């Protein structure tokens, strides 16, 4: 018995070790090759010679703007849909089951198809042109299924007792949702949000066709702007001798994701602490 328990512990540690190892390999590769390029100037300059020299300032700005655009759309739409699915719909109804199917399928659409769709629909049909706006909207489409699924799962995991308690006190679902359910589910929601932000910042194929390739400073969200992932892809695949700058940009992108993750989880923990006093 103790033997089994012991070996299980060892297996779990080994698994964690493996994950860490693979990650370490990947990241150290990026850090070793990208660190020499990293400097204040690299962050603050415009790119020159197709990005081989100069910096990535306009690209960082474009990336953040695209992400913001996507979030502005995805947060209300995604959280709203998830709340409807988890709290306001009857689970067994056909409509809900169809919706779920649709979401799962949406999660599996290859990013390049999203890109081509965004190109035809947002850039073309809605006449938004190749712009940060089009790119953000396309990304939003990709993020939706991830955010909805994880938020829904988070809400479903909230103990039923509190819904009963709320009902017995004659409270509205809205109050209960806002005061109890959402705060309690917020770690799961944050995890989902981070997952989808991660996917969005890492996205290349969908953005090449929508937000575009222009590497100058965007003046507005109607301007085309190059995202970091697109920049990395272009440097490593199309620009001869772009590898160094490519790794440098990859390092910046990873750092950016770290910062976003940290601030999001801090924010959500703060909210949690404020609302919920949970015992762990």
């Amino acid at each position: 018995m103790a033997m089994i328990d012991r070996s299980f512990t060892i297996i779990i540690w080994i698994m964690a070790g493996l994950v860490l190892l693979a990650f370490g390999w990947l990241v150290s590769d990026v850090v070793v090759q990208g660190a020499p390029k990293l400097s204040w100037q690299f962050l603050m300059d415009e790119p020159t010679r197709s990005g081989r020299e100069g910096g990535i300032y306009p690209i960082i700005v474009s990336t953040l703007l695209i992400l913001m655009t996507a979030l502005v759309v995805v947060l209300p739409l995604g959280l709203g849909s998830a709340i409807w699915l988890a709290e306001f719909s009857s689970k067994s109804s056909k409509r809900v089951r169809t919706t779920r199917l649709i979401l799962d399928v949406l999660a599996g659409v290859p990013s390049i198809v999203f890109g081509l769709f965004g190109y035809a629909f947002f850039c073309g049909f809605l006449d938004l042109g190749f712009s940060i706006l089009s790119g953000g909207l396309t990304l939003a489409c990709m993020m939706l299924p991830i955010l909805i699924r994880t938020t829904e799962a988070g809400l479903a995991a909230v103990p039923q007792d509190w819904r009963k308690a709320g009902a017995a006190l004659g409270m509205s679902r809205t109050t209960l949702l806002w005061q109890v359910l959402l705060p309690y589910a917020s770690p799961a929601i944050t995890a989902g949000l981070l997952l989808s932000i991660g996917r969005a910042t890492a996205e290349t194929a969908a953005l090449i066709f929508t937000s575009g390739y222009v590497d100058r400073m965007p003046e507005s969200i109607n301007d085309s702007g190059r995202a970091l992932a697109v920049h990395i892809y272009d440097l490593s695949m199309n620009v001869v001798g772009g590898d160094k700058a490519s790794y440098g940009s990859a390092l910046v992108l990873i750092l950016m994701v770290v910062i976003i993750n940290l601030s999001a989880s801090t924010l959500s923990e703060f909210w949690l602490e404020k609302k919920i006093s949970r015992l762990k």
Partner: protein
Amino acid sequence: MLSKSLTLLLTLYIVFAGTAVVHAKGNTRLVLTGSSTVAPLALEMAKRFEKSHPGVRIDVQTGGSSRGVVDARTGRADIGMASRSLNQSESDLFSHTIAFDGISIILNKSNPINSLSNVQIQNIYTGKIRNWYQVGGPKMPITVVNKAEGRSTLELFLHHFGLKNSNIKASVIIGDNQQGIKTVSGNPGAIGYVSVGAAEFEEGYGTPIKLLPMSSPLSRPLNLITKQAPDGLAKQFILFAQSSEVNDLIEEQYFVSLAAPSK
């Protein structure tokens, strides 16, 4: 707390987006879309052009030669970019060559083979020769690197060696040049074909690849495409892109300028 910071962010964003709408698109804007091979070059040309023509904005987009052709035809772009010649169904469009891209066979540096005949290359690509010792090299299986269907370099290669794509026995199929170079540099038994300029740069840079001398040079044109005979700003830019003012930019991207065409 969360809701407050969200509101703040949202407000900032809306203010920003609001100013966006005020920025009306001027008519001094030119949109180029298409080939990912041409795009980095066109982008640099555009930057230089913008400098000498204040107020003009040129947006260069990438996405592939076919996109360049389609966008030029539908008018979504003022100028398309293609790293190939127009085919018959596209003869209604106008193409303007701005540079050439040569193609070279590359091997891994550790491979002692220094030249291959056309017949040997044919046999390697059709799978009749599968090991380097059959052409006088070490005992080592050959990794044949081919390009994906539709790419102009593939067509050029097939045409030059009189091959059919369905007869080629490839071990790896790649998209872009750099992927080809990375594949060959990481594999001692690999053979592939990529842009000369890219290969020369990487070889000089220390990447473990080597170029094989070719009996006759292979090259493809890099084109700008318009729907009609160009006029106005588009015409100015195309003429600029074909002028000697941009030779240094072309060389920087390891292409061959019009002044010294290789074909």
